């Protein structure tokens, strides 16, 4: 945009062709991660999402580092690696593969460690993975000077322009993950919130948990590559926090969280355009705003119900009693 240009909603729609891929990618990511966030928040594993997104970010950063180490640069293979390098180097230097391997590795470590760890030890392990991911990205960032803008994107999400391939990849991932979840929703819910009862009823709880975690890992790793770690963490926590307050059951929590995630992603992008903010930060702030608005509405609703009850209290009886006393 020209310096001094007036950033308005009208200008945003006029420039829609320019922003379309990034906005749609964010909205798809918000929808998918909002849905999965329902499990993350209700199962009280918010740190899992943070650790996965940071580990995925480290995987992406490591892929960039490998590209530079092998002298690859410029254009990309289907995996995202550079075309002027051998196929194996392109594969190993693929940011997507880096993100997926890191996320699946973390999932495997957590799945193996979970039965042996108490809640507090699990928290500590997730904290360790998060810190390793964050510090690793920053440390590798100093070795990837030419790609420093990408490192910023990985960390904070500044997806101003999203490539067609990235959008397609994110859309395919969302369709696959959400399709799987719609098919297995009852199983995932039982394995998540009545694990022992489900095991007694011969349901494959271990396989369901594995499927749930792997789907989260894949979604987080792909979305981290495209959108950045900060909005990925935000979309997988904040919409579900808001949905949990207003939904009558788990199924509705997942659906409302998905819709709120999409809304936060879209309007976050618009806000980033209007107020010249980094996209990831704007999307996160919009999601925080949604949580705040829902919280206020919930409290207002409660107060209104109390007020209504107070208004409808049996005043007639008391008046009659008073009348009787007077008489």
């Amino acid at each position, binding site marked *: 945009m020209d310096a001094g240009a007036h950033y308005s909603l009208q200008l945003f729609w006029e420039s829609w062709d320019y922003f379309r891929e990034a906005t749609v990618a964010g909205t798809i990511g918000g929808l998918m991660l909002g849905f999965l966030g329902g499990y993350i928040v*209700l199962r009280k594993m918010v740190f899992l999402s943070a650790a996965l997104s940071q580990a995925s970010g480290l995987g992406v950063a490591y892929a960039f580092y490998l590209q530079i180490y092998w002298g690859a640069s410029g254009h990309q293979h289907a995996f995202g690696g550079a075309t002027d390098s051998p196929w194996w180097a392109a594969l190993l230097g693929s940011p997507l593969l880096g993100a997926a391997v890191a996320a699946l590795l973390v999932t495997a470590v957590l799945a193996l460690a979970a039965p042996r760890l108490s809640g507090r030890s699990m928290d500590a392990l997730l904290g360790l993975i998060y810190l390793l991911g964050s510090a690793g990205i920053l440390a590798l960032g100093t070795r990837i000077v030419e790609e420093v803008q990408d490192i910023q994107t990985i960390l904070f999400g500044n997806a101003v322009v999203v490539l067609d391939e990235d959008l397609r990849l994110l859309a395919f991932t969302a369709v696959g993950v959400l399709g799987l979840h*719609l*098919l*297995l*929703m*009852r*199983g995932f*819910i*039982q394995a998540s*919130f*009545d694990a*022992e*009862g*489900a*095991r*007694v*009823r*011969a*349901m*494959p709880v271990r396989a369901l948990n594995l499927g749930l975690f792997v789907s989260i890992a894949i979604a987080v790793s792909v979305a981290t590559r495209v959108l950045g770690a900060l909005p990925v963490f935000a979309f997988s926590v904040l919409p579900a926090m808001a949905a*949990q307050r207003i*939904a*009558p*059951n*788990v*199924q*509705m*929590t997942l659906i409302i969280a998905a819709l709120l995630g999409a809304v936060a992603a879209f309007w976050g992008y618009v806000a980033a355009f209007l107020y010249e903010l980094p996209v990831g930060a704007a999307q996160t702030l919009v999601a925080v705003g949604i949580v705040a608005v829902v919280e206020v509405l919930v409290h207002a609703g409660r107060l209104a119900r109390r007020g209504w009850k107070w208004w409808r209290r049996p005043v007639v009886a008391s008046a009659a009693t008073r009348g009787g006393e007077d008489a």
Partner: protein
Amino acid sequence: MGDVLLQAKALEVGYGGSALFPPFGFDIRRDEFWALVGRNGAGKTTLLRTLLSLLPKVGGELQARDGVRLGYVPQRESVDPSVPARVIDLVRSGTDRAWSFLWPFKSLWRPDAVRRAMRDAQVEALAKRPYAELSEGQKQRVLMARVLAGDPDLLILDEPTSAMDVIAERETFSLLDHVRGERRLALLVVSHHLNVVARLATHVLMVDHEAGKVVCGSIDEALADPFFAERYGTVFSCYDCGERRLGARRLTQLAPHVHAPGAAAEEAP
């Protein structure tokens, strides 16, 4: 196995390959009311989890008859109140078994099972209420309805009356006994309320990890067992109503109580 639903032969339960008690055995049949009793830390939960196949057994045999459906009602604290759920949602979830969740709308195909479970557990009026807002007694009935929706043959309950007031506790046990008769279920209930056990149970499974003892058998056999009497006292029968009560050994007669038809007898102050 004949009419036996669950059979244990020389069963050993414990952790890490070491058994908590000597081997023991039992047969659970339809219509029987088994009470699993013991002090805190006696090994009740370990035994319960082994019976439910949530823990591997250390030794012996544990066999359920082919096609027998187990139902497990955990302690109420195991249901997270921050997870939004209406009563109807919880009850519907009880219809899932094995891989049935692959049919996403399955519970809608079994509305009769859901309705019957809610009627039997007396929670029909609560259908749309959030679980978290219910009283302890109502929550227990909802958890029972969830399991009943799966049409179990053997219902296993872990301390169903913990943290309940006396009235809710009495109602819960009455409901359990009613459901047992109505559905011809076998029940296995972990309980600390020995007078209720003496009144309703047909069989007793008493475990004591410290003493390394298991008392197992019909209520009359268990009450006559010297170890059971040493731990819980002697049983007394009321001359008028025939009700059994447990009391300290030094007592020589049953404590005075009210004979209310259809209701549990009240202790005299």
